[in-house]
């Protein structure tokens, strides 16, 4: 047997074997869709698409599911309105991606064009390192440093008292969640942008400068324009990371399915929330109850679907932008 493997392979056989192995990724994705959708099915079967809407308190809805331990719960046991969690996810990752995009583009311009050579050489590896720091470390800094700081020094006691009947403002909430998420995704976007900027031929930039643009304007008008596909791809990747980040949000968001309301004024940024992903972590112990399990898998289905949508959207946006022969 081993002897057969050691003999030189024929091309046909090699092509078939490698092709079969390459299909494993596709099989994994297909299996994942089937398994998660199948487990989530009871929820959608009983609740329909109004499941995505708002109404009632998700925390108490999940809580009553956890107490319902019958193996075949009634249809009413599946009652859940997931909007607060979806809103929490969209709010945190939306803000984080907007801030992250602005900061990463500016930082990339700084590193490539403006920074003194010493700083430039130092910053590229540092950003790369930051991009690979485990998110739980950012979460730890968030919960041990930022949350107490915001809770004790930024939120006034008057603000705390004004909402004491509704929520507790501990410091964990929208502000810290967005800050930590931004800190987490910015290095990833910056590293990808810098790498793409480095692949733009220097002569394009020099040509633009020779035509009378100042160096910064040349970078914006020529280099950034040329790497738009890479920026879109980096943003999609960062958005996927932000939406799916469970642990960090679980640590710094306050863990309460409250919907922060912009019309609350300044308190808005301190209000607690919870995202889809962090709810999955929270309820990981309760997966034996059918109703809760189905709801959790429905959350996962939603996350998976948004991940797929992001990669499809990024492909669709990138295609018309890819006019220049740059690899990205």
């Amino acid at each position, binding site marked *: 047997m081993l002897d057969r493997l050691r003999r030189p392979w024929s091309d046909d056989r090699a092509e078939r074997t490698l092709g079969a192995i390459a299909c494993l990724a*596709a099989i994994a994705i297909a299996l994942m869709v089937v*398994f998660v959708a199948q487990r989530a099915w009871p929820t959608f079967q009983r609740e329909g698409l109004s499941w995505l809407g708002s109404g009632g308190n998700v925390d108490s809805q999940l809580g009553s599911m956890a107490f319902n331990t019958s193996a075949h719960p009634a249809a009413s046991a599946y009652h859940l309105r997931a909007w607060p969690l979806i809103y929490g996810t969209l709010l945190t990752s939306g803000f984080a991606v907007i801030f992250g995009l602005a900061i990463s583009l500016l930082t990339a311009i700084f590193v490539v064009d403006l920074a003194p050579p010493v700083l430039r050489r130092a910053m590229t590896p540092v950003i790369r390192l930051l991009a690979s720091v*485990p998110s739980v*470390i950012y979460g730890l800094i968030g919960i041990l440093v930022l949350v107490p700081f915001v809770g004790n020094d930024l939120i006034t006691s008057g603000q705390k008292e004004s909402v004491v009947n509704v929520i507790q403002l501990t410091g964990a909430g929208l502000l810290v969640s967005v800050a930590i998420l931004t800190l987490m995704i910015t290095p990833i976007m910056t590293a990808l942008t810098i790498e793409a900027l480095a692949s733009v031929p220097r002569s394009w930039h020099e040509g633009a400068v020779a035509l009378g643009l100042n160096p910064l304007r040349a970078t914006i008008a020529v280099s950034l324009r040329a790497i738009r596909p890479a920026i879109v791809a980096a943003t999609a990747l960062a958005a996927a990371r932000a939406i799916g980040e*469970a642990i960090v949000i679980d640590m710094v968001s306050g863990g309460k399915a409250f919907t922060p309301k912009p019309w609350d004024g300044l308190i808005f940024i301190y209000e607690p929330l919870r995202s889809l992903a962090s709810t999955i972590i929270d309820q990981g112990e309760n997966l034996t109850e059918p109703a809760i399990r189905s709801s959790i898998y429905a959350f996962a289905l939603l996350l998976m679907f948004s*991940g797929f949508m992001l*990669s499809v959207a990024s492909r669709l946006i990138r295609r018309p932008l890819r006019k220049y022969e740059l690899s990205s």
Partner: protein
Amino acid sequence: MAHAEPVTPPQLSAPPRRSGRRSSVRSWRRSDQLIWLLAWLAGTGLCVAVAAIVTFLAAKGISDLNPTLLVTRPSVSLDQSHSGGFLDPLIGTLTMAVIGTLIATPIAVLSAFWVVEYGRPRWLAGIVETSIEMVAGTPDIVFAIFGLALFQLGFFAPLSFRASGGGVYGRSFIAAGIMMSLLALPLTYTATRNGLRATPRQLREASVALGKTRIATIRRVLLPNVRSDIATGATLGMGRIIGSTAIVVLLLGATLQNNSQGNVPLLGFLRGTGSTLTSYIFENSPSGEGNAPQKAYAAAFVLLLLVLALNGLVARISRVGAAGAVNAGRLSL
């Protein structure tokens, strides 16, 4: 005809002084000056933030870390000084990295070879590319919950931890490792694919002209040439694996100690539950069950050192590789 006035050359203003780039910022448009300012702010702000985080973690880590923490097992205690060290999580992290990389690397490399070197039928290659892109865009929490559904099947029961009653939890190092490999797969794949695409055509043509088959070309010519790309991708994947928390919490159990399943030495360990440094940090933060911030800081510092070491390795591999390989290979994140 009256003689024409000699054309006076247009009055040139004084030639622009070459006074370095930075002093010319004054002459730029207002909006450009603003962007210039913001870019400086963002860049220096990032430097300051990095310096602050690293110094803070290093200060906390060094003051809270003592070598005995690395070699003692965690134990149950309300008092931080008696709750043991993090030997088990450290072993868990290393085990996860090894299992995940061992599974992901061959699959990723062979897939990349097939897509770049064969890639027929085209639609199938397109599906493979899209799937791997989808894997890259899927959050690790989804892999975790998918793994839970998959390994709770009776068919996979031998691979995972069992409750005393015989119920299948679907939690084990093997289960978590297989899901972890999905995190590393796209990174290794992309690095290998980019390396292959950067390999000059002539290399393949020369090999074929010497009478080698395609698979022999792959094994004898292309594989050695993209070795450093593979190593880079695998190391990046390893970094992703040791940074994942969600999969550990849901699929490995994030137990205090590593619990073996059965008595077979290595297999029992792999079938058992356990924890890694990431889940240890999570459990010891105020939001976890342990709430021992000093332990969490110390573990975070160790984890950061591991990541630093991996990053150094990546830089080293790509430097050495760039010198040896025939390509215009570049690093991919």
